[in-house]
């Protein structure tokens, strides 16, 4: 006859080979394998600037210590659970108080914490330093995109007039940049993992963060404070380029408005833009039929009071909160995977008709809320007095979409 302990042992082994154990094993291996991802543009373990390097250095100090402590605790728990499990034995003698052990177990964690606190606090203090920055860029978050503007300044090797763009921040490589950030509606958080830690952008407050890239490249980021329905679709990129390329980019952004050729499809698109888009989207220099400058009034239609400036739309690579590419996959790879010394040059080429990702852009113009969840149905927005969050469906015809794309392709 089998003894009770033999039966229990068999039962235990059966459980270890059961479906639950297998699922746990596969899930664990999956999580482990995720750490080996190669295409990880938002990798904090791959710093590309001094601030991110400081965070990385701190991580490499803290994480091993935390890992060893965690491992020791887990091993002890496992030993205790296995060794002292209930096997019907008598309850051991109960004791109270082991002063020597308690003192040791207090002092050791305290020393570990002190050892972690000193470099952590000094890193936090160093990260908050912005006095050495040489270029100011304002960042304003709203549901669900980032506006980026460069005020008039001597920094950034001189900016004579303000530059306004969205989704993609262009900076000169090796230059410490001061980002002054705020928000127009709810709390957002600016995070370019390879360049620095995250910083909350809060309505009514101005927070600063220092960005510097060691070498040219495109650094991806993501809003990291839950900000509503399309929080996951609120992305951004920092494009670091060589100083000469940056100068060319500034000139590109400050170039005056170029009206489309008369009787062209783009000219029809200009009229369509004025009728359908210009009430929210600013295009600097665009005039109405009487020759007056058209000033967008997004504050009358949009809850955040802003919509992306489209003056040089096709100098950017992404749209709709940097969530969709303006470039086809092949052209995108040509820019994003370019060697550092040419990435700026290729970025400056912008988007042309051959490289345009017209599928996504057409879908966006056809029905934006279908692509990106937004509170864009004015009839359902009592709480905001009908002001939309995001871009509404404008019910454009296919002809109008063709015209608008022709017009936008010339916005460089």
């Amino acid at each position, binding site marked *: 006859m089998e003894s009770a302990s033999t039966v229990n042992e068999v039962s235990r082994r059966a459980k270890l080979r059961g479906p639950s154990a297998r699922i746990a094993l596969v899930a664990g291996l999956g999580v482990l394998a995720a750490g080996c991802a190669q295409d990880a543009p938002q990798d904090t373990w791959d710093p590309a600037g001094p601030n991110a390097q400081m965070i990385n250095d701190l991580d490499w100090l803290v994480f091993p210590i935390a890992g060893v402590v965690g491992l020791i605790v887990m091993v002890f728990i496992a030993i205790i659970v296995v060794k002292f499990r209930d096997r019907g034995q008598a309850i051991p003698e109960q004791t109270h108080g082991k002063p020597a052990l308690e003192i040791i177990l207090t002092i050791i964690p305290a020393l570990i914490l002190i050892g972690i606190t000193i470099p952590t606090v000094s890193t936090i203090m160093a990260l908050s330093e*912005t*006095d050495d*920055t040489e270029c*100011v860029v*304002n960042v*304003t978050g709203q549901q669900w995109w980032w*506006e980026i*503007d460069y*005020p*008039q*300044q*001597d*920094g950034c090797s*001189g900016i004579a007039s*303000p*530059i*306004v763009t969205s989704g993609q921040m262009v900076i000169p490589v090796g230059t410490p940049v*001061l980002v*002054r950030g*705020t*928000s*127009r509606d709810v709390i957002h958080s600016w995070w370019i993992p390879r360049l620095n830690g995250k910083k909350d952008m809060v*309505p*009514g*407050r*101005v927070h*600063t963060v220092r960005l510097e890239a060691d070498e040219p490249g495109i650094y991806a980021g993501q809003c990291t404070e839950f900000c509503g329905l399309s929080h996951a679709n609120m992305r951004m990129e920092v494009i670091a380029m060589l100083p000469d390329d940056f100068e060319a980019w500034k000139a590109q952004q400050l170039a005056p408005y170029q009206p489309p050729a008369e009787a062209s499809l783009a000219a029809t698109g200009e009229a369509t833009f004025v009728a359908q888009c210009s009430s929210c989207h*600013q295009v*600097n220099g665009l005039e109405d039929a009487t020759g007056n*400058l058209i*000033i967008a*009034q*997004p*504050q*009358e239609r949009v809850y*955040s*009071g*802003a919509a992306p*400036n489209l003056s040089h739309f096709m100098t950017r690579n992404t749209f709709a909160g940097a969530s969709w590419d303006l470039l086809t996959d092949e052209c995108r790879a040509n820019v994003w995977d370019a060697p550092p010394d040419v990435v700026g040059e290729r970025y400056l080429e912008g988007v042309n008709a051959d490289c345009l990702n017209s599928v996504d852009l057409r879908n966006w113009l056809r029905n934006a809320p279908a692509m990106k969840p937004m509170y864009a149905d004015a009839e359902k927005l009592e709480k905001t007095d009908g002001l939309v969050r995001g871009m509404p469906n404008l019910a454009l015809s296919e002809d109008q979409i063709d015209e608008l794309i022709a017009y936008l392709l010339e916005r460089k």
Partner: protein
Amino acid sequence: MLTTGSKFLIGATVLALVSAIAYGVTQDGVMGTIGLLSAACALAFLAGVNIFTRDSNIWADEIASVETAPAAARPPADSPWPLAFALGTVVLTVGLVTYQAVFIVGVVLMLAAGAEWTAEAWAERASADATFNAEVRSRIANPLEFPLAAAIGIGIIVYAFSRIMLWLSKTNTVVFFSMMGIVIITVAFFIAYRPGLKSRAAFGAIAVGVLALVAGGAAAGLDGERPIKVHETTEGLSNEGVDICSSTEKFEADKKASQSVGARASVAATITLSDDGQLTFELNGPSQEGSDALTLPRSNPNNVLFVNRSDDYRRLSLDLGTRTVADEEGVDEVVPFLVCTTLIDTDSEQNKTITIGAPSIAAPDGYYFFVPGVESARLELVVP
């Protein structure tokens, strides 16, 4: 024979069915009908269970059980809670078609009455001893009842107090409540130094006082608050067409304005009027060196701090071009669009939150800060 509980549930089932039919016939949409039919099914099921288990009661024909069962030893006492529950139902129903506040009162009344009724009914079945049952009920219900009753009582007194204070004029409030304080202290003194005074008399005096307070509060609440003068603001005066932002005169809006600001971290820009009449600005973090213009984001609440280092009272004004407003007859007219701080003393500071909807290119001359009375003080504002 149908049991008491099952009769109630059958009635509720029929009511839900009738309501479902009425709703389906009179209202658009099917969700309400589905909900009511679901409720009818659930109630019918419960009715069936109750009939089957005979309300979980002993069988009527088991005489011995009837005679010996504790629950059967004593009839339930009179209770106000069923009445309160029914009243709550009525109030809730009325609230559904009138005001949300009435509905909430009905829900609260129903829940409170239901809880009390449940506790009382449960306690009455605890034993055959009525005294013991009453203790059981108190033990269960009092820890909830006393704090709630105290909160409600204190809330009523405080609310009545506030209504009286808001009804009386500022001077009369001081007089009235000084007298009230004297009366309360006198009565307390009298009670404390008369140990022979019956507690009923003391309780009566307090009850009269509380009732008077509540009655006074209700009367004052119904009569409304005294007229409270609204302090003028620079923005309000500007909107009324008063040219305060170009003026060096002192308006009422300039009086008693705070001239110190604590929340420095929220300041988007600090604008300083120097003693030589120049306006300069500083930003949070390193400034935009080389820029003659301050840049602030559009459609965003920007906190601008004005610091007066001149030797006179000064205000900071912002010229935003023009705007269109409707005059008294509803006709649109174009008026200057100015916003400003109050007049502040030398070495004082004042915060102004500015939200600008349109970019500065919307104004022919752009946007600019200026200080009335100081010609040289001018600072361009760029809103991209």
